[in-house]
């Protein structure tokens, strides 16, 4: 696989398919890299890898629990990167983690280490526009796409700036709240998707609360695709194996493809 996250996703979108980015917490099980492969085989267009942090302020109970498990099992950034380096999933891998892990040494060192192990993108939910300047430069220097979040509460002016400065795709939050399956998709979600699509040609993906294939298809209708996290992590915490998680991703894939027809 060559090129940036954005080139890859834009090319896939060009074939008329809604984009699907499933998530896994790195280190949540000893065989988590098999989950990444299963996602890719089941039709994922990229995979989001959560680097577990002790205090995930934007995560609901499911991803908190997955992160807690991974940390208890001794997962570290270094360890994740070593495993990622041996993983050829065939689709871009995007790290998602919190600022504290990113600033440990320097943001430049962090970005360089990610890129060196083969990651192509980075999402840091507690680093909004105002705080992302240095990180955006470091990511660009390392050849990583820094994905920014857009929220239902963002003003039009902020959305414009987010759309302009985000790389890879724009991560549109379906609602005000944390990750998790519970809760409503806000009415603002469709509006947010439309507004972002007006503002940018970059792919726009919805995340948070994409809890079923039907919902994935519905949301993808307002943008270019979806990120699915808690629905997968809950199945994993309930005991699902990589093959079963792959099957769930395949069901999301089918729903998205049918919705697009």
């Amino acid at each position: 696989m060559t090129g940036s996250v954005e080139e890859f996703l834009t090319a896939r979108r060009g074939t008329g398919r809604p984009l699907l980015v499933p998530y896994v917490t790195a280190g949540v099980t000893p065989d988590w890299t098999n989950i990444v492969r299963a996602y890719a085989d089941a039709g994922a267009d990229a995979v989001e890898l959560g680097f577990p942090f002790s205090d995930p302020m934007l995560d609901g109970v499911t991803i908190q629990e997955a992160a807690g498990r991974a940390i208890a099992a001794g997962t570290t950034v270094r360890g994740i990167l070593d495993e990622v380096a041996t993983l050829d999933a065939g689709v871009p891998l995007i790290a998602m983690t919190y600022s504290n892990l990113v600033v440990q040494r320097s943001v430049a060192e962090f970005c360089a280490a990610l890129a060196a192990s083969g990651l192509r993108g980075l999402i840091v939910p507690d680093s909004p526009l105002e705080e992302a300047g240095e990180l955006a430069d470091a990511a660009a220097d390392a050849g990583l796409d820094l994905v920014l979040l857009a929220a239902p509460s963002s003003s039009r002016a902020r959305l414009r700036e987010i759309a302009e400065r985000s790389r890879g795709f724009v991560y549109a939050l379906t609602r005000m709240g944390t990750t998790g399956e519970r809760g409503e998709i806000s009415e603002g979600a469709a509006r947010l998707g439309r507004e972002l699509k007006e503002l940018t040609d970059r792919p726009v993906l919805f995340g948070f609360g994409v809890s079923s294939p039907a919902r994935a298809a519905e949301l993808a209708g307002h943008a270019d695709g979806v990120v699915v996290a808690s629905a997968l992590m809950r199945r994993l915490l309930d005991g699902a194996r990589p093959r079963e998680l792959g099957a769930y991703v395949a069901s999301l894939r089918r729903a998205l493809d049918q919705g697009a027809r």
Partner: protein
Amino acid sequence: MGEMSWSGRQGVAVPPGARAMGDPGATGRFGGYGGRYVPESLIPACHEIEAAFRAAWGDPEFRGRLDTLLRVYAGRPTPLTPAWRLSRELGITLLLKREDLVHTGSHKINNVVGQALLAHRMGKERLLAETGAGQHGVATATAAALLGLKATVFMGERDIERQELNVLRMNVLGAEVVPVTTGSRTLKDACNEAMRHWVSSVDDSYYCVGSVMGPHPYPWMVREFQRVIGEEARAQCAAELPVGVPDYVVACVGGGSNAAGTFAGFAGTTARLVGVEAEGGAAATFGRAGVLHGFRSLVLQDEHGQVREAHSVAAGLDYPGIGPEHAHLRDGGRARYETVNDDEVVKALLRLARTEGIVAALESSHAVAWVIRAAGSGEIAPGSTVMLTLSGRGDKDIASIKELL
């Protein structure tokens, strides 16, 4: 009474030089610390609160209302009391700024009355708060009742057990107390949960942060609401002391709000500023730079960047970070930060109780413990004057120190 002269003249005019700890500007930076590390969803709320605070703080009517409430409701100004007998034992002059005497029993009320007035002015219906010792929770529940707002308080399950009295007080005041069962089940996790709840209720809820932490403008705003401690004490010292300024100004530090408010009154003077942390939660001493709960500061963390759990006999100091301005004051050498252990703290609580008839909170007893140690070792020279902020009263702690008696 001892031989120390004491006039009881305690003016509260703001002396010159008190403004040395200033406005951190639009980015909320104290040197390299502070900032606004929150999800995009919360950024508009942070902007809205900053704008509302700037407007209110410059509005004489708001300032007048706050001032009136602090006087006629909270019981300010608080006295500066000489610790007559303990001073004699230690060979120093120890003055206590009596925040234990304000309504609800700790300095937390100063900040909460300010923020609750602001929330009310902004048209919010509910106050959200995290609490460790329960003092901030009680203060929030109190201010909510006063202004006709609802209150939801997040509290670690472990703290609910050891601060039962305060949980009951919050219930009596009509607040909802939500137990937090994740992580260390203490203050750090209560902060996470309060933030998560805030994201999903930001339209009608106001997050009333309990210390000089969180995203900008909170560290600055909370310090400004606590500045009243330092300004009163500064004026009281000016009226009482031959040289007008104490040699040392000492306060305990959890997140650092009573210390920040105290220091703000003395930063422009020659007084040496000392913050005292719990040994098991000493971010200024054992922490590294990091980002937690929306701000960059010194954080207790392992070599991989996972935040450590703090451990202290005082629930209000069980916090693995420190307010960003304290990290900045430490780096610049304007303030220094010391640690004391649980054992010293309990002994200090008993000693102050038995020499002065004042039962201080375990949190505040950290400051007392350091003064006792430093005066004993000669680090504080004999004859020095020490102004110590006694941040709260110890009623809430009696049950938990029972077995240590």
